[in-house]
């Protein structure tokens, strides 16, 4: 409990320092979001006003390396670059094989078990097994407690959410969330967002898959739910499709040096999106991804232009 309190306090002070610095609003105005040249853009979690960087780190596939020493060191290296760039949120799940122990290895090696914004999931159809699974996950991560615990892919969500609310009340987690991906179960998710007291929701969103813009993103904004976006690159397929296409000249006006930044800026600039969590196994890609959070985000007119351009060349 006291550890959590200290972490919250530290984050609050960081947020105040950031606000005083004046460069990390991340808000969309007419034109570009204001951001200092070297200031990380962050957005507030509506339920607490705690700010988190608009780019986090996913771990699906990329961190699942088993007990391969080389793979584990590579995960730690990716995490080192992520933290060095100011990143805080790492997201995982029991479904991602050995990703959780790999994250724990990296956190321990980098001395970041106290400062990471830890986001994990509960993924079991047996709701009685939920608490034991979450405790196992916590031990893998080697953290005192998770910041955010989400119900993975709506699995047994009624029962798991009850458990998560209780854990939040007891101070064992700070935020409660629910996730889906690949555009699945949006109607059910909408119902859950309307009826439950969620801090976070997570779903897929990218420049081509924009179904969530119609209902889920506006609903999240209305209900004060923070939004984590998974698959901002369509699991790498968007990057593969675009990597040989020319980046438009006007992308320079929002400091885009490559397609990953272009795609991430599009996602992160939606007013209802709190952060995106691209996954990668390469340190260079982390640096590239994080750079998207250090320069202006596109406004609505620019976002429309981005969509038009990508749809035209693909």
């Amino acid at each position, binding site marked *: 409990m006291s550890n959590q309190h200290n972490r919250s306090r530290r984050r609050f002070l960081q947020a105040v320092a950031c606000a005083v610095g004046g460069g990390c609003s991340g808000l969309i105005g007419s034109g570009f979001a204001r951001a200092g040249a070297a200031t990380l853009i962050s957005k507030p979690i509506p339920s607490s006003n705690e700010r988190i960087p608009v780019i986090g780190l996913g771990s*699906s*596939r*990329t961190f*699942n*390396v*088993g*007990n*391969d020493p*080389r*793979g584990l060191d590579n995960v730690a290296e990716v995490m080192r670059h992520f933290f060095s760039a100011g990143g805080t949120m790492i997201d995982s799940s029991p*479904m*991602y*094989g*050995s*990703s959780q122990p790999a994250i724990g290895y990296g956190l321990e090696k980098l001395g970041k078990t106290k400062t990471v914004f830890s986001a994990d999931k509960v993924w079991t159809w047996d709701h009685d097994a939920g608490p034991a699974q979450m405790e196992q996950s916590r031990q893998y991560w080697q953290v005192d407690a998770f910041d955010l615990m989400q119900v*993975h*892919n*709506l*699995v*047994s*969500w009624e029962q798991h959410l009850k458990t998560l609310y209780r854990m939040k009340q007891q101070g064992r987690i700070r935020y409660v969330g629910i996730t*889906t991906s*690949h555009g*699945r*179960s949006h109607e*059910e998710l909408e119902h859950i967002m309307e009826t439950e007291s969620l801090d976070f929701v997570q779903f897929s969103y990218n420049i081509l898959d924009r179904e969530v813009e119609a209902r889920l993103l506006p609903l999240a904004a209305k209900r004060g739910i923070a939004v984590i976006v998974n698959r901002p690159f369509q699991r790498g397929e968007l990057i593969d499709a675009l990597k040989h296409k020319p980046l438009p000249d006007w992308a320079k006006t929002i400091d885009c040096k490559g397609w990953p930044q272009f795609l991430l800026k599009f996602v992160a600039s939606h007013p209802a999106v709190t952060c995106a969590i691209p996954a990668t*196994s390469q340190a260079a890609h982390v640096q590239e991804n994080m750079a998207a959070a250090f320069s202006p985000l596109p406004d609505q007119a620019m976002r429309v232009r981005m969509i038009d351009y990508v749809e035209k060349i693909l």
Partner: protein
Amino acid sequence: MGGLASYRLSDFILFSETAYYRQFELYNQAIWPLHLLATLFSLLIGYALWKKPAWGGRVVSGLLVVSWCWVAWAFLYQRFNQIHVVADMYALGFVLQAGCLAWYGVIKNRLALVAASRPGIVVGAGVLFIALLIYPFIALITGRGWLQFEMFALAPDPTVLATLAILLVYKAPKILFVIPVIWAIVSGMTLLVM
């Protein structure tokens, strides 16, 4: 409500190609010199199919039983399970196949007769050649490095392929084809999705 039906195969392939093939590299390093024993298995099977001795069917079945059990335990359960959430189920399937091979091949001696049809023998011999002699070199040919090689009796794909070939050569009960065919589909799709 997040039921299993809402998942696709790709949802369960949550490891990269690099991580997958690194498992073979680490595995090969860990089990050396069992590769010599696996080579002996291959030679014995080749000899039994060539010379057709009376003991051939039983011995070949016995070698397959040992191979399927070993792959189930040492690779699928001990190693692949680290990165694949359903690898323990795969291991169970391999043990089941070992049981079937033991029952029909070793106990009932149902792999005693060589297939009458020439196509069966030709196709079987061709597939066996690939499984035993070509498969170990695929890692090298595709530029993954020779340490990531997959070998009959030690790795799942060449073991399954060799088993299918042997079943084609012998007049094997059809039930023995079920799990190898399922594996061939699952593994093929995994390699495709990965």
